[in-house]
């Protein structure tokens, strides 16, 4: 809970945004103190969709607990699974085949594009433009089709197991991904024409919701939200995993720190993801998609931590093992929670309409905040 700085005085209007509100994209409850249209304080209240996922994981085996994390940040479920599998593999020192690594990264980047597509549509909808949502979904659908063909599911893929993948890719996979890339490239200019270049949109975004690099670091903001303030925090670059070190891509940094910078980071990040996919799609090595692992996995006694870059920021998995078949304690470090904590700092003194835009640029997924 945010500390009491902005004192409420006579004449202030306190409104409850949520838990049922079109702008929160889930069951988030914000208590907003307003002076006219100007925001004096934003107080997020959590707990409406708490499912005690961390506690649930303690009674699941090391093979099983991975798939519960799909339900946290459901838009980058594949990347969450990836992080969990990496932690288990680190503990057991399993070497993953190259083929599995490449496919994992391909899926990660496809998930990232799909997530950013959805964000772009929802963001524009927060600002009152409905059409972009449908345009974004047109491209996102084809990613979902690719996922469905290979993984059997469209949203919570559950494709990763410790030691590799659940199954090999579908024979059509490479062709479908190339089709998607050509579709995406032929449509990406529409995004700029419809929204990015729009004068109303730019006026709504520029100079609004400023987050300084110092604040971004002190609130623990990660991902595109922090990179919009010029904080270099891309885990794929800083602590590469599963072969990101061999790939050519840029970490996108914007220095303005306002809503528009955060928006541009995501837009440009999608193009970097496309670049990564293009490098890998024709170079999937032959070989096994999975290493042989024991039927029952037992992590050695100790503590294990891995972090990956999801579409929203740094996602960390911390496992304490007592040597049994289930974790003794699991803690997830989810990006949404820290990013939300910076909302109050960003929103003070801005207008109510811009709060919605700021929440859009933070790309909040509520089940990720409230585990």
């Amino acid at each position, binding site marked *: 809970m945010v500390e009491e700085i902005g004192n409420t005085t006579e004449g202030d209007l306190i409104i409850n945004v949520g838990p049922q509100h079109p702008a929160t994209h889930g069951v988030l409850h914000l208590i907003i103190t307003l002076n006219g249209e100007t925001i004096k304080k934003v107080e997020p209240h959590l707990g409406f969709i708490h499912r005690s996922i961390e506690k649930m994981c303690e009674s699941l085996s090391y093979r099983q607990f991975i798939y519960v994390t799909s339900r946290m940040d459901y838009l980058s479920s594949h990347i969450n699974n990836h992080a969990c599998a990496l932690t288990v593999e680190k503990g057991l020192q399993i070497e993953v085949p190259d083929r599995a690594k490449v496919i994992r990264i391909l899926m990660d980047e496809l998930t990232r594009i799909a997530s950013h597509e959805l964000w772009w549509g929802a963001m524009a909808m927060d600002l009152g433009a409905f059409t972009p949502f449908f345009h974004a979904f047109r491209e996102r659908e084809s990613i979902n089709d690719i996922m469905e063909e290979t993984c059997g599911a469209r949203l919570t893929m559950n494709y990763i197991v410790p030691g590799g993948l659940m199954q090999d890719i579908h024979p059509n996979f490479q062709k479908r991904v190339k089709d998607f890339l050509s579709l995406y490239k032929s449509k990406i200019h529409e995004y700029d024409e419809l929204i990015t270049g729009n004068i109303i949109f730019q006026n709504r975004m520029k100079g609004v919701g400023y987050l300084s690099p110092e604040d971004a670091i002190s609130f623990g903001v990660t991902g595109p939200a922090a990179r919009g303030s010029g904080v270099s925090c891309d885990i794929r670059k800083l602590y590469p995993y599963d072969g990101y070190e061999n790939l050519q891509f840029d970490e996108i940094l914007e220095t303005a720190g306002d809503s528009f910078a955060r928006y541009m980071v995501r837009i440009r990040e999608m193009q970097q993801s496309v670049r990564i996919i293009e490098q890998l799609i024709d170079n999937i090595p032959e070989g096994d998609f999975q290493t042989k692992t024991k039927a029952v996995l037992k992590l050695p006694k100790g503590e294990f931590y891995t972090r990956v870059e999801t579409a929203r920021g740094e996602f960390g998995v911390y496992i304490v093992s007592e040597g049994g078949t289930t974790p003794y304690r699991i803690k997830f470090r989810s990006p949404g929670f820290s990013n939300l904590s910076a909302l109050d700092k960003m929103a003070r003194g801005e*207008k109510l*309409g811009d*709060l919605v835009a700021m929440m859009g640029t933070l790309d909040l997924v509520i089940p990720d905040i409230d585990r």
Partner: protein
Amino acid sequence: MWSLSSISNAIHTWLNETFNPTWAMIFEMVIVGVCVIGLFAVLGLVLVIMERKVAAWIQIRLGPNRVGPKGMFQSMADTVKLLVKEGMTPNGVDKFLFNLAPLIAMIVAMLLMAPIAFAKDFVMWDLNIGVLYVTAVSSITVIGILMAGWASNNKYSLMGAMRSGAQIVSYELSAGLSILTIIVFTGSLNISDIVLSQANGWWIFKGHFPAIVSFVIFIIAVTAETNRAPFDLAEAESELTAGFHTEYSGMKFALFFLAEYINVFIVCAIGATLFLGGWMPFHIGNWEAFNHIMDYIPSGLWFFGKTFFLIFLIMWFRWTFPRLRIDQLLNLEWKYLLPISMFNLLLATALAILGWHF
């Protein structure tokens, strides 16, 4: 040119021959009232389905396609649903004002129909200050919205209503000034006279630069006045859930909804009348043959064609642009549109005095 006046004259004569003058007038009023309500209902249905189809077309989807051929009866099904829904009055609201507000919005929209020329010699009330009447009556809409916002006893509604109040009051100025530009050219406030003055060309072509500027300003201002995106701050779905009509449901909500669409129709009709010649066919100066061919198209078709073109334009805005913020909205009006339209009016006056328009 074929005209509808023969029909109305025939009815008038027959009524006066059959009944005494008082009864004849009462019957005429009833006929006009039934026509207005009928037009109201039909327009509401047509505009709602049009909006949904236009939205679907812009958003690469099909839109309603289940009820009737290509979903054309969808809005009727929606109306039936709204009619049979319970008209809730929440606890803690000011019951009288709460129930009065949608009626005011509706009545204002109905009153605005009176001076509009739908076709040649087809005006309900050929008022000699028609344009002034429209601008005056349309400003009552804001009272309905403020009343709804205040009576709802809901913070979202109140904020929506306050935004709407600020917005409508501001944008009326530039809407009024751009209407004034045409009045300066025409020298009359009577809508029939304004239409007749465009017999040799519409004002948007005849009025040079000032007419085009005032047309653009008029379209922006009326979009704001009717609370439609990108100026839909009073409703602002993502910020204020549904703005001033958050607490309304069933038919009371439907009245607001209907009033909004009728207002869109009326402002577009005014725009078409002032700038695009109303029911006047497309005439070019003294090209007699061309003008004569154009006259074969019925005048009502010209009027509705132009009006629906403008309505389409306003719908296009709605499905393309993001929403403005409240301070940007007021800045746009007071810092840009108002000075520009004042200067534009000055220019138009100079042109009119020098007689430089065609």
